[in-house]
């Protein structure tokens, strides 16, 4: 358990980003960088985080950032990490990529880098849509959610990137949420103690994308975990441990409707889709519990 006092006060995300008000991603980035510390190089594909770093010659991030094409982050990080290790440098290489860059366009490069055992941390910040380009659907958009390209609600379920990553057998992977900074901080810190490819998948609520009022980001993140639609866990050398907030949710989840209702993207969602989502939550809980129990 990390207490707030242990989280460094150093800020690597400076007070000059052009992130939207209430941005869950910028909140997550702050804690990722605090956990990574100063000897870190960020590799960043196109996405919100790349956009709100500011415009040349200035930058809002107090760490070196290698900006790279949408599909190229994992492969570029592979080249960077391989060269640094060959030079005997321990500098941490952290890819910070959105759900579109990770689940969709960059998936082949992500898979390749994990298969090659690239020594890096891959962070996927997941706001469940292409936020930077105006909220089009991505592979991470949940079923029923309205986006600018699924105005009637996305008909397909969210792609399960964590299982895809698990199939690559990384030494460490975890899920996190911007609304739980201590849990997030600890998981990133832990991920960076491993050699080889590690993965942290962070749910980052997005006021304009999810269509809720900007001050509710932390509340929405907590509701995502408490309702069970977003489960927090970590898998270390194949051994799963469910995180405390999700343990609590497994015992007594808040009704999913409490999570859906404040979000404009779920306005008008039909009861069959809500039932489907609830069914998937229950099934996911069952699966996680079974894996943790080793059965």
């Amino acid at each position, binding site marked *: 358990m990390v207490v707030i006092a242990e989280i460094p006060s150093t800020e690597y995300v400076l007070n000059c980003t052009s992130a939207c008000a209430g941005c869950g991603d910028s909140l997550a980035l702050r804690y990722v960088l605090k956990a990574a510390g*100063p*000897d*870190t*190089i960020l*590799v960043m594909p196109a996405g919100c985080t*790349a*956009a709100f*770093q*500011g*415009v*040349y*010659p200035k*930058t809002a*991030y*107090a*760490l*070196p*950032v*290698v*900006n*790279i*094409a949408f*599909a*190229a*982050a*994992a*492969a*570029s*990080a*592979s*080249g*960077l*990490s*391989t*060269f*640094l290790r*060959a030079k005997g440098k321990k*500098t941490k290489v952290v890819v910070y990529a959105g759900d579109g860059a990770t689940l969709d366009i960059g998936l*082949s*490069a992500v*898979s*390749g880098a994990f*298969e*090659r055992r690239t020594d890096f941390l891959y962070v996927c910040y997941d706001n469940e849509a292409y936020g930077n380009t105006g909220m089009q659907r991505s592979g991470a958009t949940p079923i029923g959610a309205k986006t600018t390209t699924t105005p009637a609600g996305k008909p397909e379920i969210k792609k399960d990137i964590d299982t895809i990553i698990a199939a690559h057998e990384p030494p460490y992977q975890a899920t996190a949420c911007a609304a739980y900074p201590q849990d997030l901080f600890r998981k990133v810190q832990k991920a960076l103690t491993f050699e080889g490819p590690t993965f942290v998948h962070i749910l980052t609520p997005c006021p304009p994308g999810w269509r809720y009022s900007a001050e509710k980001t932390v509340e929405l993140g907590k509701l995502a975990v408490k309702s069970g639609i977003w489960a927090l866990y970590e898998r270390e050398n194949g051994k799963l441990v469910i995180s405390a907030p999700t343990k609590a949710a497994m015992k007594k989840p808040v009704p999913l409707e409490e999570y859906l209702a404040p979000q404009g993207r779920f306005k008008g969602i039909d009861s069959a889709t809500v039932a489907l989502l609830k069914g998937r939550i229950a099934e996911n809980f069952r699966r996680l519990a079974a894996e943790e129990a080793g059965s």
Partner: protein
Amino acid sequence: MRKISTGNKAVAEAVALARPDVVAAYPITPQSDIVETIAEFVAAGKLDTKYIPVESEHSSMAACIGAGIAGARTFTATSSHGLTYMHEMTNWAAGARLPVVMANVNRSLAPGWNIWVEHSDAIQERDTGWLQIWVSTVQEAYDTTLMAFRIAEHNDVLLPVMINLDGFTLSHIMQPLDTVEPGDFIPPIHLPDPVDPAHPAGYGTIAGPADQFRFRYKMEQAMQDAKAVIAETEQDFARRFGRTYSAAEEYRAGDADVVVVALGTLGKEAEVAVDILRDEGIKAGSVRPRWFRPFPDLDLAGKELVVIDRDYSFGFGGVLAHEIRSKYLTKVFSVIAGLGGQEVTYDDIAEFVRKRRIGEEFWFGVSDHV
């Protein structure tokens, strides 16, 4: 040392002498045995290079870029669809001013599915900011690869270099090869401002219109400055190793009335055609541009030109023919020949010259008037 080698093996041997820090590659015919040979060198402990076997050409260039931003000397090789798949990242490498050296074994693009020589793959990269050179012999492939690292990494250049060699007709043919001991011909790499956590900075950050405009202008300045660096490198190579190269190789062109212009092996083949034509009393010559970017300064005034393109810009014409036309305001007979590996002999080239129709375009094997 004199030996017999293919074009591909010659490139791989020259790359090994340059000792790149990182080679990232994906296999594609007819390129594969360049990177296979490098992988063998690494596996045998002859070469202290990190070999990254990537899952695509997009990633091979991305990996070279990632390593390059940290200051690494990088190499990759590709061909055809590999190059077009990599296209997004070739732009990125040039824009990031990274001196990646890449061998591109020229090959046609599908459909039809065709593995034979054509220059369309490289020509599609024309405007990305890469220096492009075409070689015509195994020896030239070897020597040029050595020179490419020094040129790309020169502080006045800092642009990537693509060495083009014709698929199969050069990549897989055997010719004599004199190898060299490069000594200090290729200096250690020293890139300005490699990424460093002690000095946080954004690489490839969003740039507004005014800055982007300046970046592009500087790339063009580097292209122009590369001409002097190329000349100096070729002269130093000649001094050290006795083999002379220039931006464009001329053959009996000085007093010629008609000059054949072609890239790669066809440009070399044209020299035989020139001898045949001279025997017939036709004052022919040939010019083979080695460098295509930056485009060489050619002395073509007052001559008729027969330009052979192993490429085509649909809706416009043969690219080399049009580049020469626009740069030198001269009339050319544009011959489209050798696409998809179509055989073009020196006799065919001699016939193009004999029956030239200046101002026209002729598709060898399709048009019927030659």
